[in-house]
């Protein structure tokens, strides 16, 4: 039998409570912080890296570090969003302030690293700190005779739905040379902004600035960032036959599998990583003593979901840089005084 008191710090999920194991060495959780030891223990493993999503493991670190990076990515890594809306004309039924708020929430594709923070909110927008867009659209009756008898709104009216694709970028100063048209625009083309009827009109000037999630959630570069501990399941008593099949059903699909050997079915742990940690096993008197469910306390499964302006790996690197520059400037400050 494998012991749960190995060299990893673990939490044990019991029927009604959560306990901890007794690791046989000192772990990151109770050790003195030393950079050499940290470097030796720390490991990163990338599991999945897609356009907008990324999953990776950070192994051998103290929870504070995982949480610090999570917090920085959510609220301190900057991005661009519409901050000011000049309403020249709005005869649609949606009110000016609701429309302005809604426009602010549209995710923009623009690299925030190429912009400066706007220091004075009332200053003129310039090429280094702002992006200008235009939304000019008018709804009218559709004169096309071929679909005369249709009663679908798309056939009866032109521009009855205003989408994010109708937002046009207006370059300021040298921005025309600096950026390409396809790099500066709303990320999604099909976000519905307003519905209109003939005679309704929108004429807006939009200004996007750079800021961070602390200021307003629309500036957060991520849809979400979260981490969870690696689940680990151990079968400590042989589970056979019908009981094995019941055990499989107690966990998420793929976690426990059945091994056929000499006409006998035995339950084995296949992959505990994607287990939800549900405690269904404890419903069965005969199964509850057969498994130990644990979570490894220094193994973090990080998941970053980008909104789309930056790749998830760039967002993570930005968060490292931010923490570093923050510490550097504070240290400089301390040394100066």
């Amino acid at each position, binding site marked *: 039998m494998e012991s749960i008191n190995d060299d990893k710090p673990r939490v044990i999920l019991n029927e009604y409570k959560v306990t901890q194991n007794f690791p046989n060495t000192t772990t990151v959780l109770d050790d003195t912080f030393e*950079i050499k030891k940290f470097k030796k223990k720390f490991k990163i493993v990338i599991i999945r890296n897609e356009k907008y999503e990324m999953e990776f493991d950070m192994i051998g670190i103290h929870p504070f570090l995982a949480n610090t990076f999570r917090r920085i990515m959510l609220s301190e890594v900057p991005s661009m969003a519409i901050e000011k809306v000049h309403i020249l004309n709005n005869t649609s039924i949606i009110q000016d302030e609701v429309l302005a708020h809604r426009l602010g929430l549209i995710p923009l594709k623009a690299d925030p690293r190429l912009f400066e923070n706007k220091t004075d909110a009332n200053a003129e927008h310039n090429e280094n700190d702002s992006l200008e867009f235009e939304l000019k659209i008018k709804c009218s009756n559709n004169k096309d005779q071929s679909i005369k008898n249709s009663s679908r709104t798309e056939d009866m009216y032109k521009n009855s739905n205003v989408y994010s694709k109708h937002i046009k970028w207006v370059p300021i100063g040298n921005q025309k040379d600096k950026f390409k048209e396809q790099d500066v625009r709303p990320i999604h083309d099909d976000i519905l902004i307003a519905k209109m009827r003939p005679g309704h009109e929108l004429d807006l000037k939009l200004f996007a600035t750079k800021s961070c999630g602390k200021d307003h959630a629309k500036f957060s570069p991520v849809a979400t960032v979260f981490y969870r501990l690696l689940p680990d399941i151990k079968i400590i008593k042989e589970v056979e036959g019908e009981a094995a099949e019941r055990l499989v059903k107690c966990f998420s699909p793929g976690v426990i599998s059945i091994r056929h050997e000499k006409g006998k079915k035995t339950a084995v742990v296949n992959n505990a990583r994607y287990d939800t940690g549900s405690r269904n096993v404890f419903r069965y008197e005969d199964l509850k003593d057969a498994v130990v469910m644990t979570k490894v306390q220094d193994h973090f499964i990080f998941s970053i979901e980008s909104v789309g302006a930056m790749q998830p790996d760039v967002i993570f690197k930005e968060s490292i840089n931010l923490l*570093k520059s923050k510490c550097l400037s504070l240290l400089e400050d*301390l*040394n100066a005084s």
Partner: protein
Amino acid sequence: MPIAQLAGSETTNDSNKTFVFKDEGHTLGNALRCVISSYPDVLFCGYTVPHPAESKMHFRIQMKKGKAVDALKRGLDDLIKVCDVTMEKFNEEFDNFNEQATMSI
């Protein structure tokens, strides 16, 4: 100036100090606290954000021996090194991962 020291009282001297960080919160406070409180010379280390509407963070260090400022400096220095190591390991693994991805195609 981002770091100030809390006005003195009988509980403040070289080895016991409360630092006030402007425009910082739980993000840096907790990270720094975890690093510094693990040092053997530190008797006590804790932080508080006195009021959520004020962007201020109070950071208290009490030492068994030595100066509180030195522990704070060491903590910040360690965090900087942590960032460097994280960046290095992440880049290494990221290149590895991409290499393997292109190889499997």
